[in-house]
């Protein structure tokens, strides 16, 4: 639903470089260019810090998976995947192998 955004090309580049800088992926010249841009671009500083706060909020607010929920979901998974051959990968593989062998015999 997002409308197409318009951000100056220099800011687009800076936003990507901010991500790359966190991972130590920028060389010295790129770092200097980024710093120069940030020193004069309030939009980029705001975008970086604002979204970092949103990300932090989402990270800290993520509810833990309760042990009871984990166990209940596992029971449902076992029930569904154990119900038929479609859910038993090992068995399915064996059937595939058997079929391949039968085809090979036919060819020979």
């Amino acid at each position: 639903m997002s409308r197409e955004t318009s951000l100056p090309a220099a800011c687009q580049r800076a936003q990507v470089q901010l991500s790359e800088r966190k991972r130590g992926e920028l060389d010295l010249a790129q770092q200097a260019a980024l710093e120069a841009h940030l020193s004069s671009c309030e939009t980029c500083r705001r975008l970086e810090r604002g979204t970092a706060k949103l990300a932090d909020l989402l990270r800290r607010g993520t509810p833990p998976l309760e042990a009871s929920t984990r166990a209940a979901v596992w029971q449902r998974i076992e029930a569904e995947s154990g119900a038929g051959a479609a859910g038993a990968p090992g068995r399915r593989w064996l059937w595939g192998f058997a079929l391949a062998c039968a085809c090979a015999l036919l060819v020979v």
Partner: protein
Amino acid sequence: MQGTVTGDIAETRQPYADDVELVSRCLSGDEVARSELYRKHASMVHSLAWRLLGDPNEAEDVLQETFLQAFRSLSRYRGEAPIASWLRGVTVRCVGRYRRTRARRRRESRELPEVIIDPTTPDPARQIDVDLALRRLTALLSKLAFSRRVVFVLHEVEGYSLAEAAQILDISVSAAKKRVWRARHDLERLAQDDDVLSVLFSSSLAAERSSAAKSPEPAR
């Protein structure tokens, strides 16, 4: 996420030998291995699903669907990345399918909570109600294009590099780069319409100015 060494030969040849071995056991029908895979990664899958959907019940549904799907397609895991990354990719696809089938119902239940800011509070930014802000954030994220939301969550929240996020999503790195700046830009624009989240943005600015006035940031 290389795990512990389980075999010298496997460890030297495969960067994710533990994962490969576990998957191989799962594929051979080892129920203990399947249970172990679930036990190790259920929380991560649930967290990602919740961050993308913002609803605990839906996250639970996706947790179940993700592992059902994963067990069906484990043979496609090649050990080129940690199994956790592979599972994230499965999770994202399951969330995408889940959203498509339940889009209408979710839209109806996405009413924004009323804004409650105590007028006597001198500085609303410092008194922000975290629960309210979180509810607002999940509502806001639901307005962000899904392709951008996924990159935001994987990169900004879960800490994957853009290249890693691109690999998980099976998109090009340049597409991931485009999505990350668009996501940030959209989030800022959407937050402007929200009196709680816009405070987070403005307080960031205030904090930036105040810290800049006190001491410059150390050079990287």
